[in-house]
């Protein structure tokens, strides 16, 4: 994973210091700045990119990894822009709920910055978005209930999207770890938004209380369905969990979230992306 040419030209003491701090960061030490971003990824080429030029970051990562990170970045741009707009629209979010969405916005903005730093010059540009989805949600920024619904759709889809990409990051352990760390934050977001909407934080069957077509897409199967089942799935690793536990389908289906393939995620997000 490390580019020997890059390391050969750098003071080895720097890498020693960086790797020591990486260990501290993995234990949750507070950090800041772009160097911290690189260190959090624990990828020396990425850390060096922050100290040197953007070129290091892009050339150090294989194309398939770059593609996964750009996919993630696209979704984070979507969420970040959505919350920047929503939180910035006075009168939309009631004061009682504002702290929740400010925290979510803070995280999505941070995810964008993190992925941009990881990708360097290989980062895709921010698309143009239409959060009405071509008129499907005309009042997304004037009706709080609509805003909440779209938020939940984004968060639950984001969880499924990251989960679906995890196997593609196995060749880069520290990037995989960072993706998992984002993935669980999206799950916290999803749970909280669901609770604001009067639902359980977890997904029982395919319950989302979203408009029918959106609900079916967000909680439905991916492609192929055998690898990307719908959220009401009750069989894991070939084990029928209802038979195993004698529980009903509801707790069994809720105990596991399901991944979604990239194409199906992009089909869900597509209506919101203009260019």
């Amino acid at each position, binding site marked *: 994973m490390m580019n020997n040419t890059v390391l050969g030209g750098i003071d080895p003491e720097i890498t020693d210091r960086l790797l020591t701090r990486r260990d501290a960061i*993995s234990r949750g030490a507070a950090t800041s700045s772009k160097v911290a971003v690189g260190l959090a990824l624990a990828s020396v080429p990425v850390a060096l990119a922050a100290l040197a030029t953007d070129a290091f970051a892009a050339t150090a990562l294989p194309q398939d990894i770059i593609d996964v990170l750009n996919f993630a970045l696209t979704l984070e741009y979507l969420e970040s822009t959505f919350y920047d707009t929503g939180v910035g629209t006075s009168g939309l979010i009631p004061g009682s709920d504002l702290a929740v969405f400010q*925290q979510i916005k803070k995280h999505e903005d941070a995810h964008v910055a*993190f992925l941009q730093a990881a990708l360097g010059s290989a980062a895709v540009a921010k698309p143009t978005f239409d959060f009405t989805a071509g008129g499907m949600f005309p009042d997304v920024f004037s009706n709080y209930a609509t805003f909440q619904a779209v938020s939940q759709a984004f968060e639950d889809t984001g969880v499924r999207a990251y989960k679906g990409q995890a196997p593609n990051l196995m060749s880069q352990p*520290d990037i995989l770890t960072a993706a998992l760390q984002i993935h669980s934050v999206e*799950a916290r977001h999803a749970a909280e938004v669901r609770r604001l909407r009067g639902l359980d934080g977890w997904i029982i069957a395919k319950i989302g209380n979203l408009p029918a077509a959106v609900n079916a897409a967000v909680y439905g199967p991916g492609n192929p369905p055998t690898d990307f089942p719908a959220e009401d799935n009750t069989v894991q*690793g070939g084990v029928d969990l209802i038979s195993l536990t004698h529980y009903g389908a509801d707790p069994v289906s809720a105990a596991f979230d399901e991944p979604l393939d990239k194409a199906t995620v992009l089909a869900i997000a597509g209506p919101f992306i203009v260019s």
Partner: protein
Amino acid sequence: MKDGGSAPSVPLVVDRPLTAGSRREFLRVLGIGSAVVLMPSMFAACSDATGVTRGRNAAVTLDLSTDIGVLNYAYALEQLEAAFYEEALKHIISGCSSSELHALLQIGQHEIVHREFLKAALGSNAIPTLQVDFSSVDLTKRDSVFQTAKVFEDTGVAAYNGAGKLLHSATYLVLAGKIVSVEARHAATIRDILNPKSMDFAGDDVVDANGLDRALAPSAVLPLVDPFIVTPISA
């Protein structure tokens, strides 16, 4: 703790023995019929009043260089979580609303599903049932129960996040991924119950400046859960 299914006729053993009438009332408050067994091991007779379960005392060693070891690590943590909710829900938890009790019940059910799934997946490679000890927790008080649940769920998230890269099999990585996001939903739910509609559901104490949740190595997780596990675990 005996594994496998249990019958409703197994006597319930708690700090304050419930009469048949109060047990019916307890179950009525939870909104379920008195004949329903809530969880497979919930009323296991072999748990004593302090929640210390009798089981083997032999130390457990995890080889985290193998997927079996990593899955057993996850199984150990799920055993701990499941046992906690099972034990907590044997008590009348003062200060809890019915919706909060219902959340604890569902979370406990999920943890039992996780535990039983991992046990089945590991088969003969599964570590034994761990002895646990929740005597340091006041399971009759809402704040104590939820604060402890918060620690378990947050630690579970960090543990799975830290263990993902240790897995060699993509299949196991996906399964771990399917579980960890549910643990994160649990954590957010508990945190929201403790401080509703605040930023705590994904607070700055667990989510850093990059928007990343914690990821802890097994060597950092095991000391955190050590106070609640009697069976020695080394990795």
